[in-house]
Every structure is written in structure tokens, then in C-alpha cells.
């Protein structure tokens, strides 16, 4: 090694046109990384072995994965998650704007809403909506009157329970987003003669999206999983469907695996969607957009083949 370095005396001027010689040094050996890698792989193997020895009828899992009850449950999980999230988003924007308004009444009401719905467990909220008939047997709002048990269907109880809870979280996320937009933006918009609401819709909210979307994506992924709690209000979603089959087939663990696989698929698909949404709203804030995963793969492949070509 020292011989090699001696051949190139330090500080010798590089002749014009000849690229400077790249450093050829022996890299530091990371023995710790090798040890850690081996230990982790060994543990994984042990875990896999344990599961293979467990009393699991693995064949049941793929068999039941596309069972019509499961697929129907899956559909209901998507439905209730999307509907609750939509309700949460609308409420979130409304309460965020109320919270930031100069009117002390609206801002305190918004604060109260967030305090109550963020401060109590969503499971309890679901049970309260579902049991509303206990204190209000009849639903009566003047022009419409019905038995509460008919009005408060499992779907409505689930929607209100999840949606109102989500609204409280979204209100805080949206508020943070709105406050992240520079005041100069509002001033510029006002100076152009744009009204308060146009300023909010055209200037502030689109820019706050960049701050709002990442946590909202998290919220939605959370929602997909939290929706399993609506088992409590008899809503026939994915976990309920899995439990129904489990109770008749006695493949209890297997059905939990089936449900888990579907939850993983759902969250993975929506994570990809979130990535592209974030990329869309990054327009203008970054000089050049980050590459999509697909573009990265292509770039890596071409770099790899270039390197091989050079090596040859």
C-alpha cells in the first residue's frame, strides 16, 4: 500500500488534460455489521421455524383469502374507511378554519370539539353512538321522526364514531398546514384584490397541502386499521368477516392471518398512492421533483449496466 502511494509524490502537479488519479485505498472493514447481519438472520430463521412447527393449517390461508365473505368484509372496510376519512377531512377543514377565526365563539366551539373527540377513545365513541337509542329512543328533528334503532344503523354508528374522531385529528393537522403558509402570501393575495375566501381556497390551502398530506396519509392508513374496531357496532367489515368464518371453521388463527394479509395489502396500496399525491403537491416547492420509485429502478438499472460496461 505504501509503495503505491510513494509512486505518486504528494503535491506533484497533474499534467494538463490528464484526469487526477482516483484514490485507491483499502476500505475500512465493518466487522460489526457482518456480525449483526448474521445474528438477525439467525433470529429470523428461528422465528420462521417456530411458526412452521406451530399448529397452523397453512393451506386454509390461501383457500380463504378470496372467500366471498372475506371479500365482502374487505369491501366494507374500504367503504367505511373512505367514508369516515372523507367526513373527517371535511370536518377537519371546517373546524381548523373555525379554530383560526377571529370570532371567539367559533374558535372556542372548535376547541371544545377537538378537546372532546380527541380526548376520548374512539372505541368508547363508537359504543356511545351505537347505544344512543338507550337515551333517545325516538329520533325526532321536527320534519323527520323515527325509531332511533332504525336510524342508527351499524354503518351510521361506525361512520359517526370514526368520522367525528378523525375530524378532531384532521382539524389539528389542517390548522398546522394553514399556519405553515407565510403571511406574505395572504398579503399578496389581498393586495391583488382577492377576497378572504378566494385567498384561502386559491392561495393558502393549496400551499398548506404540502404540510397536510403526509400526516393525512398516516391518518388514512391508521383509519384502515382502526376500522376493525367497528366490530363493536356490528358493522360487517373485514375482521368481523374473518371472525365469522373462524367461528364455524375453527380456523381461528388462520383467519386472523387472512385478515392481516388483506390489511397489509390495503395499507401498501394506499402508501403508494400517498407517495404520488405528495409528489403532486411538491410542485413549485422543489426545484426538481424527486424521481418516482419506478424512475429510480430504471436509473439504477442503467447505472448498473453502465458500471458493468466500464468494468469490462
Amino acid at each position, binding site marked *: 500500500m505504501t509503495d503505491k502511494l510513494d509512486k505518486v509524490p504528494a503535491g506533484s502537479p497533474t499534467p494538463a488534460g490528464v484526469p487526477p488519479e482516483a484514490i485507491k485505498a483499502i476500505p475500512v472493514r465493518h466487522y460489526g455489521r457482518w456480525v449483526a447481519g448474521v445474528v438477525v438472520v439467525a433470529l429470523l430463521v428461528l422465528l420462521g421455524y417456530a411458526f412452521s412447527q406451530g399448529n397452523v393449517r397453512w393451506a386454509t390461508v390461501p383457500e380463504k383469502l378470496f372467500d366471498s365473505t372475506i371479500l365482502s368484509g374487505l369491501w366494507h372496510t374500504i367503504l367505511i374507511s373512505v367514508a369516515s376519512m372523507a367526513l373527517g377531512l371535511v370536518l377537519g377543514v371546517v373546524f381548523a378554519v373555525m379554530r383560526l377565526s377571529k370570532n371567539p365563539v367559533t374558535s372556542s366551539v372548535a376547541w371544545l370539539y377537538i378537546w372532546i373527540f380527541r380526548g376520548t377513545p374512539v372505541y368508547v365513541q363508537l359504543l356511545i353512538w351505537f347505544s344512543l337509542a338507550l337515551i333517545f329512543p325516538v329520533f325526532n328533528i321536527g320534519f323527520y321522526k323515527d325509531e332511533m334503532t332504525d336510524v342508527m344503523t351499524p354503518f351510521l354508528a361506525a361512520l359517526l364514531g370514526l368520522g367525528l374522531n378523525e375530524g378532531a385529528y384532521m382539524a389539528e393537522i389542517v390548522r398546522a398546514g394553514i399556519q405553515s403558509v407565510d403571511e406574505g402570501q395572504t398579503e399578496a393575495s*389581498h*393586495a*391583488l384584490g382577492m377576497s378572504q375566501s378566494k385567498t384561502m381556497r386559491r*392561495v393558502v390551502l393549496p400551499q398548506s397541502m404540502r404540510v397536510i398530506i403526509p400526516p393525512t396519509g398516516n391518518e388514512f392508513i391508521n383509519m384502515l386499521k382502526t376500522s376493525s374496531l367497528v366490530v363493536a357496532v356490528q358493522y360487517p367489515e373485514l375482521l368481523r368477516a374473518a371472525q365469522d368464518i373462524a367461528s364455524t371453521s375453527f380456523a381461528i388463527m388462520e383467519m386472523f392471518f387472512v385478515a392481516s394479509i388483506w390489511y397489509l395489502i390495503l395499507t401498501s396500496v394506499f402508501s403508494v398512492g400517498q407517495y404520488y399525491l405528495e409528489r403532486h403537491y411538491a410542485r*413549485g416547492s422543489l426545484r426538481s421533483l424527486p424521481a418516482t420509485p419506478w424512475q429510480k429502478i430504471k436509473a439504477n438499472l442503467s447505472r448498473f449496466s453502465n458500471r458493468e460496461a466500464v468494468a469490462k
Partner: protein
Amino acid sequence: MTAMVKAEGVHKSYGAAHILKGIDLEVNNGEVFCLVGPSGSGKSTFLRCINHLEKINSGRLYVDGQLVGYRQKGDKLYELKDSEVAVQRRDIGMVFQRFNLFPHMTALGNVMEAPIQVKGESKAVARERAERLLDRVGLRDKMGNYPSQLSGGQQQRVAIARALAMEPKLMLFDEPTSALDPELVGDVLDVMRDLAESGMTMVVVTHEMGFAREVGDNLVFMDGGVVVESGHPRDVLGNPQHDRTKAFLSKVL
């Protein structure tokens, strides 16, 4: 001839801080009116009062004969609604020190936004004018770029085009070149000079004494919330009468 801007005893304070202590001045139609003075003298605050971004505490402020932010009926003063203030602002363009372009829109989108949203213009009409204005400020080839892809000088020129798109009768400039690298200042000043030559009424808060001397028709030196000295830029800058003006100019010239 009525003055484009007329201030009578304008006061402004933020809590205990008394920023403007009775400003009286008149800006004539078609003139370039420069406001100079040390930082904290209240010149930017006064500029922001002209389009009611700041509310004045006492006195009267008129733009083109209209009271800014209020309506006088008999001897009573009524505050204007937000929507009425917005209507007043349509005719007053403003250029900020920090550009304040909308980062989520392209240069073209920035210039088209207000005419479409405020005046209800069709996209085609707004686009045609926006292209013409961006061409005028020398950014024909940057129309599709987002602000983050433009230099400070280019951003400020887009901001000028954006304000002009509303076809204002008065333009306010709040230290338009203070946030720029020295070599970019010239381009922005060129655009402003061109605008002045076209007859636009301009109120300019600036530290560019060369620009004030060359383009300005009138100049006011402010310090401590009052007008210390005013007159033709050549006279005020060349032969200041007041000690405070002399002290300030000796530092900046």
C-alpha cells in the same frame, strides 16, 4: 387635478409603538413618488396603509379621491366590509420586498390568477395579457417556470407583471430591490423605469438613491414617523436642509 394619493394627518400605532405620527403628503397623477429614510422610520408602514393592509388610527387617507377603508356619510365614518376593501385594492398594485409570488403556480399562473379570480376574466384573455406583460418584463422564456426555479430578480419582475395584470392606476413598491443580489437590481430597476416612463403613478419605498434621483418626480425623507423633508429628489438628495437628512444621506450615498 385631484391627487392620486392624499394623506392628512395619518397616525398609526401598534399597541404602544407609535409608528406614524401625522403624515401629510400628496402624490400627483403620473408621478414617481419616492419614500426614503432609515429603517423603522415608518415608510413601509405608510405604504401598507395606502392599500389598507394596515389600518390607520387617525387622519384621512385618500386614493383617487376615495377614502381608503372607510365610507363617510355626513360626519360619520363607516368601516368598509372586507369585500369592499378588496374592490378598492383592485386598482392598487403592490410589489413586496420578498416578492411573495405564489410558489404553487407558474410565472404565467401567478400573473393570470387575479384577473381570472377577481375580475372574472376568461382564461384566454388573462393569458394573452399575462404573456404580453411577462414579455414586457423580459421573461418571455420563463413563463412555465415555478418561482423556485427563478432568480430573485426574475421573481420580482414576475411580481411586477402580476400587479400590472390588474391594470392598476397606482403602483406601490415596498423596497423592491432590497432582497436582491447587487447584480440583479438593475433588471428590476429597468422595468420600474420603463413603467414610470409609461406614465404610471408610483409610490416607491427605496434605498436606491440613484434610481430616486433619476426617475423620481418627488421625494420624501421620513424619520421617526414624520416627514422631515420633501421636494424634488435632486434638491433633497443634492442639497439637504435638515440635519437628520444630511446624517442619513452621508451614510447611504
